[in-house]
Structures are given as structure tokens and as C-alpha cells.
């Protein structure tokens, strides 16, 4: 690149910074009022909505869990009948997996990946807005159905034939199947955003070996999304057509096979677990430096572990099906793969322990959540190894042992880091710190309540209690442990309420945070809290993996991007050498319109095939509007040169 560095004097910088800031404010501002709210394409506005929406779903899923625990607190309880109970546990699983865990992980990525790599917005901002609206429509739709007492009652994996037309008449499962399509479209869109942004828009100097581990985690997660989600979109569409237009994909009477559903579902379903878990480990690796005062130990090992997890994660799906007639040789292969995935997880844990061992540990709330995470995740990982062993899996599969296991991996492995990340990044979002004292209460209550709830479930499973029973008989010997678990659930709920109170209180009264309250090492701390719409007045450049710690007065900033339009710097994917400037589209109503068109298509189709022509037309209109509106012809600008030819096709 023939880019020259020119030293600027202090006065120049000040003056220029102020001038730039004023112009950028104008350029990147969203239109005022409701219209601005509906048309914004700012990644932080979208991601904030995403996070809040996903958190609301987390609360709803939590309330469902609480009702489940209430029902199971005593044998032969009749608070819920089987019909309602089945809806509650199905909605709990569906909400937590599809509407909370994956969306909130992607949402954090959509907020922080652009900041951490020093750019102004995600690569395809309108697509990003579209993704959120589709997700919102899907989530609202299934909750409306639930409130109308037509919530799904066949579980979050809705095995056929139970969920097929014969054994689940009515519309319940149809809403569920369409909700899958909505959330998976959103997930794929989010994944594409994250990959393209991270590949093309890193600041100069952030070569592959300097990408923050969290960004790596999000890149790998996004690739997993691209390969895993099509399986469930397709299988849920097959289920919907089986139910709506009498296809026979899963109908054994006409040559279909219920096992096909299981293969397709788990081909998605197992990677899904890692789609939730990998971002969480990324969070841990990225938070650790701030609380150990050292770069996370073993950068390369950690990144390669994540890559390995991403690959092996696609080779495990059959371990959900050991109780079916999968051939024994196949079972051994999947046992080996399932145990093998413990190796990259082990490497990560050892690296974190090494960071603790040699660091200067600061016991702030995020650090407590990290320590809690390590303990709980190790436990969940160990029971995971047990489940990989076919003979033992045959005993505990589909029992409360499995319920315990996956709550240890998903709550211990993902929700604990997530709470840590809330405490860690809240100052960046709001400019204020969350209360540390309340945070410690939050942590300890969650930790104690969690273990009280889920540890006894291991034993319940071994003592024969199957999953998904709406009640159990007296004399089964399961009553005491269930009562204990229900008490634990109360403590968890208390902890979450405390967290919400902390957030509400701290929004107004928290300590002012400043740009970098934890003295962290990554670029999101290089801008104001909360960040302005354009993120950085002058995007920084980086000279190491811990840019905030190693920068000097000589570390340059990026200048020369046009401030009058939404311009960002494109760099090449490997070395992040400056390559092109790129003007981003501004606010647009069309993403919302397209999402509505998609919504009409998939919802109307539940009731009549006319949904396809009607919705299809709406989508086509929205797409044309999208294309036409964002495409004013460009004037010939200075600096616009034709790049010929050498790398075409």
C-alpha cells in the first residue's frame, strides 16, 4: 500500500478531532422519533434491541422453568395438567435454545465485534436490521400462540411421529416449526454479518494472529451457524409440509422414516450446543486479561481449540440417538468423537488455569462468574464424557441426569460467562458501573441456587426419573430431591431479580465508568462509554494482541475516511492491510418491510397455501424497494479509480 504516515501536531489533532466529531455526529445519526427507531441500521442500536429482547425471552423461559419446578416439587401435584405442563416444558426449551441462547450470543457479537476490530458498523447494516426483525416476529408469534393456549407441546426437539399430523392435530406444532425458520434465518443473517465484518473491516495491524479471541470465537460460531442451521430449517419445513400438505417425509406408512428427523435435528442440535458454548468461552478468554493483568495464556492453543471444537462439533450428533437402532460400529465412532471433543475443552481450561496461576487476580464480579463458570463447566463436561459412553448413556439418556448435565453446560458454561460479560460490558453500554456489592450477591445466590437445583438431578436420573414427566408417583423415592431442586429454583429466581434491580438502579446511580474502567486490553475500550454511533472518531490501529496495553504515542490512528458519508475502511482478510474505502448505506425502512413480508408468508402458510403467493409478492416488493432505495447513482468522486482485473472471477 502506498499510504503515507504524516505526523500531526497536538493542535491540529484537537481541532481536527472536534471538526470530525461534529461531522460524524451528523452523518451517522439516525432520523429522529419512531421513524428513526424503525429504520436504524446502527449495529449497536440493533444489537441492544437484540440483547434486551433475548433477555426478556430468558425471563419468560425462566418463569416457565419456575412453573415446572413448582409442579414437580411434590409427587402427584395437580397444579398443571399434562396438557399445560407439556406446553410449559416445550416452551421453556424452545425459548431458551432458539429465542435466548443463540440470539443473545450473536447479539453480543453484533455489538462488540465491530468495536473490537475498530470499525464503524457491521458490513451489511440493512441485512443486520432485517435479521433482528425476523427474529422478533418469530418469537412474538410463538408466544402469542402460547398465550392462546396453542403453544407447542411436543418438546424442543419435537420428535416425529408425535409431532406429526396424526398425533398432534391442530396448529400447535405448525407455529413451532415456523418459529424455527424465523430464528434460523435471523441466526444465519447474524452469522454472515459477523464473518464479513471480521474478515474485511479489521483495523490496520490486526492481522489474523492479533484478532481478539472473542472475535475468533464469534467467527467460528458463525461458520457453525451457516452449516448447522440449514439442517433444522429444512427438517422443520419438512415437518410443516407433512402436517399441512400431506407429504410423507416422516410417515413410516408411506416410506418416510421418523429417524430422518432425528438425524437432521441433531445434525443441527449438537452443533447448536457449541454455537452457544464457543462464544461463552470467547467471553471468558477475553475478560480474563482484565482480571489477571496479563494476556490470556496460550492464544494459539485457545484459537485452535475453538477451531477444533467447531469441526468435531459436527461429528457428534448420533450420541443423542444411542438408544435407537444405530449400528454398533457407528456408535463407537461417535463415542470416540464425543470424548475427543473433551480435549479442546480441556486445553482451554488448562490455559485459563495457567492465566490464573501466573496472573494478578482481581476478584471483581465478572471474575467471580468466570471462576464459577470453570467449576460448573468442568462438572458438566465430566458428565458429558459419561454420556458419551454408550452403555452409561443407555441408562441415563432422557432422564434427569441429562437434564442436570446440559444445565451444567448451558447455564454453567454459557449463562455464567454471560452474566460476567453483563457486569464487564455494562459500563461500555451505559457509561455506568453495575454495583459490585450487589453483583457479589447476584453471583453467590446464582451459584448456590444453581447447584441446589441441578446437582440433585444427577441422582434423580440414576434413580430412574425420566425427563418430561408432568408428575411422578408417590413411593418412587423422588420426592425429596425434587423438593430440594424446587427450593434451589427459588434462589435462582431471587438472584435474577437482584440482577435486574442492579441494572435498573445502576443505570441511573452507578459510578461513572469512563472509557476503560477495567483497564482492559481490547479496542472497544478505546472509545467513549457508551460509544457514539460512529464508534471511533479516528479508528485506531493496533500493534499487538493487547492493543490498549501496548500502544504508544507512535501508534497511528486512521485518518482520511470521509466523514460526510458513512465510510469505513476495508482491509484484507489476512494481514488487515488497508485496501479500500467503502460507503455504507444509511437508515432504511425496507429491512422491516421485508421482515414483515417474510412474517406474512410463514404465518399465513400455516392456515392456507395462499401464504406463498401473497407473502412472496410482499417480499418481492420489499426487496425491490430495498434495492432501489439504497442505490442512488454515484457522482464521480475524486479518488475513485477503476481497479482492473487481476483478481476477477
Amino acid at each position, binding site marked *: *500500500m502506498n499510504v503515507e504516515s504524516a505526523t500531526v501536531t497536538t493542535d491540529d489533532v484537537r481541532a481536527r478531532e472536534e471538526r470530525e466529531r461534529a461531522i460524524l455526529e451528523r452523518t451517522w445519526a439516525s432520523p429522529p422519533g419512531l421513524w428513526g427507531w424503525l429504520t436504524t441500521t446502527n449495529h449497536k442500536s440493533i444489537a441492544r434491541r437484540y440483547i434486551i429482547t433475548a433477555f426478556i425471552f430468558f425471563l419468560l423461559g425462566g418463569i416457565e422453568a419456575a412453573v415446572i419446578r413448582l409442579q414437580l416439587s411434590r409427587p402427584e401435584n395437580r397444579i398443571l395438567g399434562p396438557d399445560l405442563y407439556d406446553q410449559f416444558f416445550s416452551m421453556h426449551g424452545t425459548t431458551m435454545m432458539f429465542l435466548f441462547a443463540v440470539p443473545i450470543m450473536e447479539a453480543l457479537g453484533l455489538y462488540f465485534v465491530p468495536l473490537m476490530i475498530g470499525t464503524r458498523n457491521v458490513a451489511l447494516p440493512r*441485512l443486520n436490521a432485517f435479521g433482528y426483525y425476523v427474529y422478533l416476529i418469530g418469537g412474538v408469534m410463538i408466544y402469542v400462540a402460547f398465550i392462546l393456549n396453542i403453544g407447542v407441546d411436543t418438546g424442543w426437539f419435537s420428535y416425529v411421529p408425535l409431532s406429526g399430523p396424526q398425533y398432534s392435530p391442530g396448529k400447535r406444532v405448525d407455529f413451532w416449526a415456523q418459529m424455527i425458520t424465523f430464528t434460523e434465518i435471523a441466526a444465519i443473517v447474524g452469522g454472515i454479518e459477523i464473518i*464479513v465484518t471480521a474478515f474485511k473491516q479489521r483495523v490496520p495491524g490486526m492481522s489474523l494472529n492479533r484478532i481478539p479471541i472473542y472475535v475468533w470465537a464469534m467467527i467460528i460460531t458463525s461458520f457453525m451457524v*451457516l452449516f448447522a442451521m440449514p439442517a433444522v430449517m429444512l427438517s422443520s419445513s419438512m415437518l410443516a409440509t407433512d402436517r399441512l400438505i*400431506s407429504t410423507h417425509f416422516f410417515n413410516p406408512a408411506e*416410506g418416510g422414516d421418523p429417524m430422518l428427523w432425528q438425524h437432521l435435528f441433531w445434525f443441527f442440535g449438537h452443533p447448536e450446543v457449541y454455537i452457544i458454548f464457543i462464544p461463552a468461552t470467547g467471553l471468558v478468554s477475553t475478560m480474563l486479561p482484565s482480571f489477571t493483568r496479563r494476556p490470556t495464556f496460550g492464544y494459539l492453543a485457545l484459537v485452535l481449540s475453538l477451531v477444533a471444537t467447531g469441526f468435531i462439533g459436527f461429528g457428534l450428533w448420533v450420541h443423542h440417538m444411542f438408544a435407537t437402532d444405530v449400528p454398533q460400529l457407528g456408535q463407537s465412532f461417535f463415542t470416540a468423537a464425543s470424548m475427543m471433543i473433551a480435549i479442546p475443552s480441556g486445553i482451554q481450561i488448562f490455559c485459563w488455569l495457567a492465566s490464573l496461576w501466573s496472573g494478578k487476580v482481581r476478584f471483581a464480579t465478572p471474575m467471580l462468574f468466570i471462576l464459577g463458570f470453570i467449576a460448573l463447566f468442568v462438572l458438566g463436561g465430566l458428565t458429558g464424557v459419561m454420556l458419551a459412553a454408550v452403555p452409561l448413556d443407555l441408562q441415563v439418556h432422557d432422564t434427569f441426569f441429562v437434564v442436570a448435565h446440559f444445565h451444567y453446560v448451558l447455564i454453567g458454561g454459557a449463562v455464567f460467562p454471560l452474566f460476567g460479560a453483563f457486569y464487564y460490558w455494562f459500563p461500555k453500554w451505559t457509561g455506568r458501573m453495575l454495583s459490585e456489592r450487589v453483583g457479589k450477591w447476584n453471583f453467590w445466590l446464582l451459584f448456590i441456587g444453581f447447584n441446589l437445583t441441578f446437582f440433585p438431578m444427577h441422582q434423580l436420573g440414576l434413580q430412574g426419573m425420566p425427563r418430561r414427566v408432568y408428575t411422578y408417583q408417590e413411593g418412587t423415592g423422588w420426592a425429596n430431591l425434587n423438593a430440594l431442586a424446587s427450593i434451589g429454583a427459588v434462589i435462582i429466581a431471587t438472584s435474577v431479580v437482584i440482577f435486574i434491580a442492579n441494572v435498573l438502579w445502576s443505570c441511573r446511580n452507578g459510578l461513572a465508568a469512563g472509557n476503560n474502567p477495567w483497564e482492559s486490553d481490547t479496542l472497544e475500550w478505546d472509545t467513549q462509554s457508551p460509544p457514539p454511533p460512529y464508534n471511533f472518531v479516528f479508528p485506531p490501529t493496533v500493534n499487538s494482541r493487547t492493543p490498549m496495553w501496548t500502544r504508544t504515542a507512535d501508534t497511528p490512528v486512521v485518518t482520511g*475516511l470521509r466523514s460526510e458519508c458513512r465510510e469505513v475502511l476495508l482491509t484484507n482478510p489476512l494481514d488487515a492491510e488497508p485496501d479500500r474505502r467503502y460507503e455504507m448505506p444509511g437508515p432504511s425502512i425496507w429491512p422491516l418491510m421485508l421482515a414483515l413480508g417474510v412474517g406474512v408468508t410463514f404465518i399465513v402458510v400455516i392456515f392456507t397455501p395462499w401464504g406463498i403467493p401473497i407473502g412472496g409478492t410482499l417480499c418481492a416488493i420489499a426487496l425491490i424497494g430495498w434495492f432501489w432505495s439504497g442505490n442512488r447513482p454515484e457522482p464521480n468522486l475524486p479518488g475513485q479509480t477503476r481497479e482492473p482485473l487481476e483478481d476477477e472471477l
Partner: protein
Amino acid sequence: MKERPGLDVSQLPLHGYSSRAPLWWGNLLMIVTEATMFAIVIGSYFYISKSFSAWPPRPIPDPDLLLPTINLIVMIVSLAPEIAVHLLAVRGGSQRSIQIGLVVSSMFLIAAVTLRFFEFNALKVKWDANAYGSIAWAALSLHLGHLIAATGETFVLTAWVFTHRLDEKHRLDLSVTAIYWYFVVVAWAVLYPIIYLSPRAW
């Protein structure tokens, strides 16, 4: 932000093609995920075929070959104008030549979509007859969806090119649409032998 040197990027060009453009990457990733979807449909096709002793299950006859083969040829031939448009777009070809290329492409696309609707009849089975019918229709429909999407994109671009002066941004759009069309044709080149030839080889 004090006294730090500036890395001046104001002289960088504004536009780039292929891997230099975010849109190209977005399109590529879209293709990756859709290719996965086709792969899963193919996997399901063979998985379901295991349940039958004959494929297609008797008395359903083998699918017709004439129409689908014509359509395959139409799609392969359509690559020529698409490649022409692609090259013209990225190498600064004249607006007139691109307009001609787009019109020719559009005609091929219309032909492919129209033929596809008749292809459903060539299967000689309905989607609700049995699992064979379901999966064969699913494969055709999924691909039809892609055909329609690519056709729609080309129409809109054609309309644009006839009403506006072609700029760099839309040259990029043209190249990306062409790449998407290549994918749609390749996907069909893979699906065609599976849907139409593999039952005969049973």
C-alpha cells in the same frame, strides 16, 4: 488521541471486486449455507430411498427425461450470457453491451423457470403419494426457489441498467448476481443426475 500519527487512507480507491467487496463475501457465505441445504436434501433423498426396495417405488414409473434435460441444457447455455455480463461489468464494458447481455440472460432465466413448472409433471408422482414423491418435489421446489430468486434479481438489475447510468456499485451487483447464478446452475447440475438418472440406475 494526542499527537498520534495518522495513517492516511484518503487515497484508497472506493470500489473493488471479488474478495475485496463485502457484498461478494456476503454472497459467498449465502451460497455456502444454501449449498449445505442442497447437500442435506440430497442426503435425505438417499436416506429415504433406503426404506424402499425399488426406487422409484412401483408402480411409479421412472421420471421423464426429455423436459428436464432440455432445462439442464438451457441452464448450462445460459452461463454464456451470464459470464459475458460478469466480465463486461467488471472490465468496464459499455452500458449498451451489458444491457444486451442482461436481456439475453433474462430470456434464458424465464425459459428455465417456465420449464421447471412443467418438470414437476415429468416426475410422474405427486408430493403426497409417498415419501419418494415428497423428497423429489422438495428437491425441485428448493431449486425452483433459487431459480426464481436469481431471476428476480436479474430482472431488477436489468430494469436498473436501462434506467440509470451504470456505476461501479452496480457493476459489483452485476458480478455478484452472476456468481449466484453460477451457483444455481451448479446446484442443478448436481441435482439433475440424482433426481432423474439415479432412479434409472437402481
